[in-house]
């Protein structure tokens, strides 16, 4: 009998605490598959953020250390500078990347720190109960934009990946989504490329993942998947944003 699907070695035997339809569990699994395939389990250090995925260490069977909200890139800088042999990734949400930790992220990127950021964008603050994120779409209702996000009062969705593309220290940035089997495969490919960028010592790499949060979006999982296609990816277009790695498939 041929095995077509099994749990990755670096994914612990534990039941995810995430809500039904949440994208985190898919992203966790993809990271583990990549770690296994690239044989990184013994030298990878992951930095989970404040947010729903703060408990990522319950699932990923690798060395991990929590970061204060938004400081992932600074913590990862310290790790990589002190221990360059490690493969270091941060796992960050939209609050981490686009609000409280923007400075840390942009400056780590600008220094060309040889680290990887997995940026999970779900357009809402999940763990605190569905408040506005910097990436919340115009008109989107959250608990702190109960009448819908009004750009005049609350600003516009912040496009961190595009901002980071302008920074010289970044070499690989791609926006993907986990809302269909095809997109999930692309996401895995992007994560792999990002880790490879770090292994090749080419600089800062980011994979932005549009990820469903059905509970806070007040949708069914299926509606959430569709909303990413119809609404979210209009504001945050999927695809390669920057690749100056010089690899064959670079731009």
């Amino acid at each position, binding site marked *: 009998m041929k095995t077509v699907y099994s749990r990755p070695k670096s994914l612990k035997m534990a039941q995810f605490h995430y809500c039904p339809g949440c994208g985190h569990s898919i992203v966790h699994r993809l990271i583990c598959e990549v770690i296994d395939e690239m044989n990184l389990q013994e030298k990878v250090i992951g930095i989970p953020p404040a947010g729903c995925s*703060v408990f990522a260490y319950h699932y990923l069977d*690798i060395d991990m250390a929590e*970061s*204060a909200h938004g400081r992932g890139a600074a913590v990862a800088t310290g790790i990589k500078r002190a221990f360059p042999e490690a493969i270091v990734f941060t796992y960050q949400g939209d609050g981490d990347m686009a609000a409280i930790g923007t400075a*840390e992220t942009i*400056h780590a990127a600008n220094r060309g720190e040889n680290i990887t950021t997995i940026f999970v964008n779900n357009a809402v603050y999940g763990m605190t109960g569905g408040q506005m994120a910097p990436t919340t779409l115009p008109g989107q209702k959250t608990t702190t934009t109960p009448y819908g996000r009004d750009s005049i009062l609350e600003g516009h969705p912040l496009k961190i990946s595009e901002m980071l593309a302008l920074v010289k220290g970044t070499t690989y940035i791609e926006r993907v989504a986990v809302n269909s089997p095809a997109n999930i495969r692309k996401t895995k490919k992007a994560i792999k490329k990002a880790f490879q960028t770090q292994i090749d010592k080419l600089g800062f790499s980011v994979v932005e993942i549009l990820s469903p949060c059905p509970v806070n979006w007040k949708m069914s999982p299926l509606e959430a998947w569709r909303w990413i296609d119809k609404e979210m990816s209009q504001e945050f277009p999927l695809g390669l944003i920057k690749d100056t790695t010089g690899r064959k498939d670079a731009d």
Partner: protein
Amino acid sequence: MTKVLMNGSSAIAEAAIRAGCQCYFGYPITPQNELTEYMATNLSRRKGCSFVQAESEISAINMVYGASLVGVRAMTSSSGPGISLKQEGISFLAACELPAVIVNMSRGGPGMGSIAAAQSDYFQATRGGGHGDYRTIVMAPSSVQELADLTHRAFHLADKYKTPVMILGDGILGQMMEPVKFKHEAPAEPPIRHDALRGAKGRRSKFIKSLTSNDTELEELNWSLFRRYELIKKKETTYETFLADDAELVVVAFGIAARIAKGAIKTVRSEGLKVGLLRPVTLWPFPAEAVQELAKKVKHYLVFEMNMGQMIEDVQLSLEGKGEVSFYGRPGGVIPTPSEVARVISRLYYQKGLSK
């Protein structure tokens, strides 16, 4: 090694390198830029070492957290306003039981304050400083030589007790040059903590964290920190006394103020006044037992600080009502002179009827 003339900030940096510090992360702020600059010149090119001028104090302390996670000796430094920003990271270091050395060359406050020397960060330093129930070991040197010696000790204690250690200096100590002799050579192989997070090779994966949804677990962490703090109190409290044996009045002062007080005490001693000095070298743990011991003989205390009265609370708490405490302070970056303090001491001495 022979004596060299060096400013306090550079002496800390040199002592840190000699203590095996491999990572320095900082953000410029007066009056301690010489420390950052010394590290840029002398640490950044050393094998296996790293220097980053961070984008903020917050980033700098979080880089220290990162380096400490992987078991490397790391340090950051700043002054008042920057130390306020670092409190988030210090709380995380304490919670995750990670060693680090943080230097505060304190300046006048509150707010932007001034760049002159002050001691107004005593509460912030000795009460934890950030959120949560924790303490940091706080050392208060009073000379450039002591800055160097205590920096070496700070790294040792940080590793020994897995805790952030703060060196609380001030603008004068940072800027002032004095002869200093370094007693240690930099180790050929800097120490790496064996329990560090360096990849799940040959062992199970592990994680370092402070968040928990389990009240029992968090209570146990707090208890375990508390037990360690009790041990630190017992083993690591240090202080210096000067002419305290026959004293009728004891001046309690730390850091640069203690030095000034010592000069004042020499003056009033020459006039026959029986005055001594107690200088806490560790501000936390505070030498409460030394105060209690003094209280068996001495009834009168003058707390002298370059602030409006912060350490005085620790003196009063330590005395448990067994002595009478007066206070003299100069806030806002004013450096009192030894003769000014001598006048205060003499006046108090006569007011309290000690001259009879």
